[in-house]
C-alpha cells in the first residue's frame, strides 16, 4: 500500500466524504439557487425595462462565484476547527494528500461545475420570466418592444480577442485557493481571517512594488505585467524595457496557472502538521 497516494483508498475517501457531507452540499447549492432567484427578482422590480442585461448576467455570475466560492473553500476544512471532528478527520486512515485532493475535488472542481449548472438553470428560467416582465413593461409604457435577452456564455466575451473573462476566472481560482489555504491554516473564523490576511498581503505587495522597488528602479512603471517596464525619460521620451520572450512567457505561465497549485502545496504541508 502506498503511504502517500492509493487510488482505491482515495475513491473510498471520496465516497465517505460525499456520504457525510452530501446534505450540506446540496443545501448550499439550493441556497445559492435561492439567492440567485431573489437577486434576479429584485432586479426585475427595480429595473423592469432590462433586468437581465448581458453585463448584469456576467456580473451576477462572477460576483456569485467569488463570494460563494471563497465562502465554500473557507469551510472545506471546517472539521479541523472542532476538536472531536478534527480527531475523526485526522485519524481516518487516508493520507494527507488524499484528504487534500478530496477537498480540491469538492471545493474547487465540483463546486465550480455545480455552481455553473445552478447558475445556468436559474438564469434560463429567470430569463424567460424577465423577458416577459420587460415586454409587459414596454407594452404598458406604449413603447416599441425590444428583442428578448438570450442565454449567454459567461466564459467568452462578445468582443473577439478579449480575454478579460478568462483572466477573471484564473484570478478566481487563485483567490479561492487562498481561502482553501486559510481554511486549513486558521482554527476559527477562517473566512474573515483569510480575507483580512489576504488584504494585508496584497497591500504589502502593492507597497513593496511601488515604494520599495520603485525607489531603485528608473522613473516609470510596469506597462505589461512581467514583460514590459516603461521608463519616463525626459530626453528620449518613453523607453520600453522588455524581458526576453522566453522569460516573460515562463513568468506569465507561472502567474496564470501555478499560483493555485502552489497554494495547494502549502495547504498540504499545513494539513500534515495539523494537531488537535
Amino acid at each position, binding site marked *: 500500500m502506498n503511504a502517500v497516494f492509493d487510488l482505491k*483508498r482515495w475513491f473510498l475517501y471520496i465516497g465517505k466524504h460525499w456520504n*457525510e457531507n452530501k446534505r450540506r452540499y446540496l443545501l448550499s447549492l439550493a441556497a445559492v439557487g435561492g439567492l440567485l432567484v431573489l437577486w434576479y427578482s429584485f432586479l426585475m422590480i427595480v429595473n423592469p425595462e432590462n433586468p437581465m442585461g448581458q453585463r448584469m448576467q456576467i456580473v451576477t455570475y462572477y460576483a456569485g462565484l467569488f463570494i460563494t466560492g471563497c465562502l465554500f473553500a473557507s469551510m472545506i476544512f471546517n472539521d479541523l476547527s*472542532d476538536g472531536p471532528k478534527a*480527531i*475523526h478527520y*485526522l*485519524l481516518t*486512515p487516508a*493520507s494527507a494528500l488524499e484528504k487534500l485532493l478530496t477537498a480540491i475535488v469538492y471545493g474547487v472542481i465540483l463546486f465550480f461545475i455545480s455552481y455553473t449548472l445552478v447558475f445556468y438553470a436559474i438564469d434560463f428560467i429567470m430569463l424567460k420570466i424577465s423577458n416577459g416582465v420587460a415586454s409587459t413593461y414596454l407594452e404598458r409604457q406604449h413603447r416599441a418592444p425590444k428583442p428578448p435577452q438570450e442565454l449567454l456564455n459567461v466564459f467568452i466575451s462578445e468582443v473577439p480577442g478579449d480575454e478579460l473573462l478568462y483572466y477573471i476566472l484564473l484570478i478566481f481560482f487563485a483567490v479561492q485557493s487562498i481561502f482553501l489555504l486559510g481554511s486549513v491554516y486558521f482554527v476559527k473564523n477562517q473566512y474573515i481571517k483569510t480575507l483580512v490576511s489576504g488584504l494585508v498581503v496584497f497591500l504589502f505587495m502593492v507597497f513593496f512594488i511601488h515604494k520599495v522597488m520603485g525607489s531603485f528602479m528608473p522613473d516609470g512603471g510596469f506597462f505589461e505585467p512581467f514583460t514590459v517596464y516603461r521608463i519616463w525619460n525626459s530626453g528620449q521620451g518613453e523607453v520600453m524595457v522588455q524581458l526576453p520572450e522566453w522569460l516573460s512567457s515562463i513568468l506569465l505561465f507561472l502567474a496564470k496557472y501555478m499560483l493555485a497549485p502552489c497554494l495547494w502545496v502549502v495547504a498540504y504541508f499545513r494539513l500534515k502538521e495539523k494537531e488537535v
Partner: protein
Amino acid sequence: MIQVQNLHFGYRRKKIFTGLNLKLEAGHIYGLLGKNGTGKSTLLKNMAGLLFPHEGAINVLGFTPGKRQPAFLQDIFMVPEEFHLPDMPIEHLIKYHAPFYPKFNEDHFNRFITEFDIPRSNTMQQMSYGQKKKVLISFGLACNTSVLLMDEPTNGLDIMSKSQFRKVIAGCLDESKCIVISTHQVKDLESLIDRVTIIDEGRILFDQTVDNITRKLSFHISYDSDEIKQALFREPSLRGSAVITRNMQGDESKLDLELLYKAIVLNGNAIQSVFNA
C-alpha cells in the same frame, strides 16, 4: 508495541511531560489513571499522532504516530472523550467507514451493537450521547486494530452499559492487541485491566501489573486498630477501615483500584517501597 522515550510535551503556558518513558506491550489492557489535567488525554493523543512531541520519540507499531501514515492509522483506533460520529445510519457507517480498516469484522460489530442494545434503525443524530458512544466503542472494537486507545470510555454510559462494556472489552483482548484505557473513574476498570499506570504532574507515579499488585498488597476492611495503624494506607469507612497492607499470605488479594489510586496519590512512597524491596 508502544514505546514512549523521553517525551517532552506542553501547551503554551503549561508543561505536561518532561521526560516521560513508557513501554506498553501487546496482549494487555492498560489502565491509565490520574487526576483531571494530568496529561492522560495528551498522552493518548501523542500516541495517536494527534499531537507531536516537543522532544523525545514515540513509536507505535513501528511507526512514528505524528506522520499519520495510512498503514498506521488503519491499525490504531481511538475512542476520544469528546467524539464525533457523522450523522448517518449504522449501515452507512459500515459501508463507508469500515472499508478503511482491513481487519474490520461486521459480525463482531453486529454482536456488540446487539449486546449494547442499540436501535439499528436510528441515525446518529437520533441517538442519545451514551448510545452514540456505544456505537463508537463497538465500531472501534470491531475494527480489530492492534492498538485501541480509549479516553474516558465509560463517561456517559449507564450502569448496565458499563458492565456490558467491561464484558465486551474483556472478550476482545488477544495476544496481538494492546488496549489502553484512560480514566479517572477507576471503579469502572476494576477486574478489566491487567496493568495499572498512574500519571501525575506529567510523570509516571506508579506502573505495575495487577498480578504483581495483588500478590504484594492486600486490600481489605479491618477492625484491628493495630493493623489499621500499621497499614500502608487507611481510609475510614462505615464498617471499620479500608486498608492496604503488605500481602504476607502470598495469595492473590482482590484489587481495590480506587483505594490503590488514593494511596499512590496521597502516600505513594509507602506503596512504592513494597515494590522496590
